[in-house]
């Protein structure tokens, strides 16, 4: 049921046509593929490396240090699982009707905000975990005083540099996704 004598349609068809760049397109396509592989690797690498690291350190470190590593691995795996759970909508089909598609994009933006918030607030959780861990090492007399102090100093330095960067990065992502969500909702009205 279409109108073949539609003046609007005739006018519409008179538009200037912008041409796509096929060479650029092929380049973009390859870039996307590499990026996808990289992200999969990035998600899987720590999870796959954990059992090997634990197995390696089992006979190398003190019992308390090993238990601490196990606890960190469990927390890390839990966090990764939560992030993957939040990302689940990304893997769903995107070729549905536009009204459903719009809803799923809005939902994905909300999940992205949650992922960024989780990353942001994990920076607050990391220092207490390290304090508890090194406190345990101190109380259990796991390391010599000087060695423990050196470890605390190095870890503290790494955390002092990396955590504020992570906080700022996560905050920016929250702002970015909020802005995108607002724009999308305005478009949906």
């Amino acid at each position, binding site marked *: 049921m279409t109108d073949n004598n539609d003046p609007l349609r005739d006018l519409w*068809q008179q538009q200037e*046509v912008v041409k*796509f760049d096929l060479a650029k*397109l092929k380049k973009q396509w390859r870039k996307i593929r590499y990026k996808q592989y990289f992200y999969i690797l990035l998600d899987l690498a720590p999870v796959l490396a954990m059992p090997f690291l634990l197995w390696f350190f089992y006979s190398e470190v003190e019992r308390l240090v090993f238990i601490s590593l196990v606890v960190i691995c469990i927390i890390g795996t839990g966090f990764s699982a939560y992030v993957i759970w939040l990302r689940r909508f990304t893997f769903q089909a995107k070729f549905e009707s536009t009204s459903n598609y719009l809803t799923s994009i809005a939902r994905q933006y909300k999940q992205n905000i949650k992922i960024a918030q989780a990353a942001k607030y994990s920076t607050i959780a990391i220092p207490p975990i390290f304090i508890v861990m090194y406190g345990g090492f101190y109380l259990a007399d796991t390391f010599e005083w000087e060695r423990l102090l050196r470890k605390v100093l190095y870890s503290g330095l790494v955390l002092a540099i990396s955590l504020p960067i992570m906080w700022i990065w996560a905050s920016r992502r929250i702002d970015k996704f909020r802005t995108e969500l607002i724009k*999308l909702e305005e478009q949906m009205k």
Partner: protein
Amino acid sequence: MIQDFATLLEEYNPLLSRIASSYEANTHLQQELLQEISLAVWQALSRFKGDSSVKTYIVRIAHNRAVNHVAYHAKQPKSDSYCEVSSPLASSTRSVEASTQQKNQLERLLQAVRELSIQNKQIVTMSMEGLSYQEIAEVCGISVSNVGVILNRAKKTLMEKVQDDR
């Protein structure tokens, strides 16, 4: 069987370009959006199962991609533009006056289409690209009668804006 990707894109280039122009006023951003749409179509073609026509499928992918693009970019028109365009109007033998009038009308039409809500814009552009009510309903996920109602209202508004010479 789906044709070679490049041939298929070449064939649907004008349609994809018009969809891009219904979302972006700036030529540079149109070009960027067209690239994004073409890439999305390329990615999606391998999953085409023949449930609809290739055209309907491509239009759906294009609109979905365009919606994403608009959410990413602020709609601030820029004065610069550098990309290659081909103009069917340029080859026309009509008088300069008629050509200018048509250009102005087209500009008003595009402006009016860009101001529509996503759903209305989608319905209007698909109709102007020759898709049937049934196909439009399928892409938008609404009923055929609803398509008719929205289309009639939107076209009436567009016609008024196009004919408005002020």
